[in-house]
């Protein structure tokens, strides 16, 4: 498994196909955040931004090899483990990207509430931001795993379906991503920092289930 992860990571990094999702992340943050804005608000936007990006990174990993090379890897390691390695690599990349993004955003933000009346404690705020980012990265990975081969194999469908699913997860009330992000944003007006533990737990379950489903299908397609 280590060898597979190393191969997938090298494939992702050297292919430079990470560049478009990285640009998307940069654009969302560039439009949504300016330096000196309230920290919890900004961390909420940063966490939300990683969701579509992680979905895209799963697509990059799942389609990174031409079919012949994929067949070689699958014969050597088994399709299930290849699919698992793809998903884990994509998730790791989005988690690292999200963590770095959150720390940079926290560094340039103002530790105050929206109306600049209350101070927001920086440590808990960053912790809450990182947990929300992790939850969004997990959900984005789940969306990516379900909206790409081997689950969704029709050409043309994966990108719009991923975009729609990511949007729904962010705006629909009741979704863990929406709960994590709105927890940060509401904290920004009240000054109370909520650690999004429950949304994170739900995201872990959703991501594990989606990954398991895609790994099961990997050998059957």
């Amino acid at each position, binding site marked *: 498994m280590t060898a597979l992860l*190393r191969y997938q990571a090298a*494939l992702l990094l050297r292919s430079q196909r990470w560049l478009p999702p990285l640009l998307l992340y940069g654009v969302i943050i560039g439009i949504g955040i300016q330096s000196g804005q309230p920290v919890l608000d900004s961390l909420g936007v940063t966490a939300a931004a990683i969701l579509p990006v992680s979905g895209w990174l799963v697509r990059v990993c799942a389609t990174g090899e031409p079919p012949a*090379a994929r*067949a070689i890897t*699958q014969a050597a390691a088994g399709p299930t483990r290849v699919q698992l390695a793809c998903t884990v690599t994509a998730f790791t990349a989005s988690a690292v990207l999200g963590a770095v993004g959150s720390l940079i955003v926290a560094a340039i933000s103002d530790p105050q509430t929206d109306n600049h009346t209350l101070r927001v404690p920086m440590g808990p705020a960053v912790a809450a931001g990182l947990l929300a980012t992790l939850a969004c990265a997990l959900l984005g990975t789940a969306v990516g795993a379900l909206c790409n081969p081997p689950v969704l194999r029709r050409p043309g469908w994966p990108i719009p379906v991923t975009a729609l699913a990511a949007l729904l997860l962010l705006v629909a009330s009741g979704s863990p991503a929406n709960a994590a992000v709105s927890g940060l944003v509401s904290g920004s007006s009240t000054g109370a920092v909520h650690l999004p533990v429950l949304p994170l737990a739900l995201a872990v379950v959703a991501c594990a289930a989606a990954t398991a489903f895609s790994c099961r299908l990997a050998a059957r397609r």
Partner: protein
Amino acid sequence: MGRRYRMRGPWVLRDIDLDLPAGALLRIAGTNGSGKSTLLRLLAGIDAPTTGRITGRPRTAYVPERFAATLPFDAAGYLVHMGRVHGLSGRQAASRADTWLERFAITGYAGTSLDLLSKGTAQKVAVAQALLAEPELLVLDEAWTGLDTAARAHLDEAVTERVAAGGTAVFVDHDPRRLTGAGARVHRVANGRLADSRAGSPEVPQVVIEAEGTGEPPAALARHTGATAPQPPADQAGTPRLLRITLPADRSDTALRALLTADPPWHIRAVRPAHPPGGGAIPYGVAR
């Protein structure tokens, strides 16, 4: 087992029952679209059967027909990665990658990015990837396509070595004589089903060997020949007798070697096709 690609779609393969013992060399024959490649993908574990199951999962390596790899690695780097995926240590993978690059005479391309390699050179990398793993099951889907003559011979040799070392090899190739000398057993896919057509089927022509000698017929020959001609009546000592052996062409080399190395050696009078075209018996090889 059976396989179809869509629910209610046509069965590509049905009621396949196949044993792959250690040390076996199997050739899958069949027309285009008969399901040969699907069968190989199932055997390699890339694909799973719709019905039935495949038991046992040996360490497997697969060589696709066409390896047009737009991968961001150079040849040596890719081989090391694949060696590790096959379970080798990094150092082992690197040294075996060197060995195989050298054996296929592409050491000069070790540092070349895969997408810049010619089709044949890329195919050699795909073959090297499979061979460096020394797999228990080697699956070759027209792996010879695109290789030059020397590389084909190297691949034949490597497959034979693998089988001799107790590995199993399954292959598809358009050349009906491929590896027949190594005793490949032929299975034919037709209408989604598998028929065992052993060596000696119409695909492998029969030859007749006529030998003259005074000694006992080599014992090894009985194992290697399909049928031995009726023995001539009891000889007086020193009188040469005629031995006529009919056997598949791919086993003639073994038989000839046995006859020539016997003590006392046999004199080969003629080797000819069993059913020569045009009716005349034309010997096409005479030894000694």
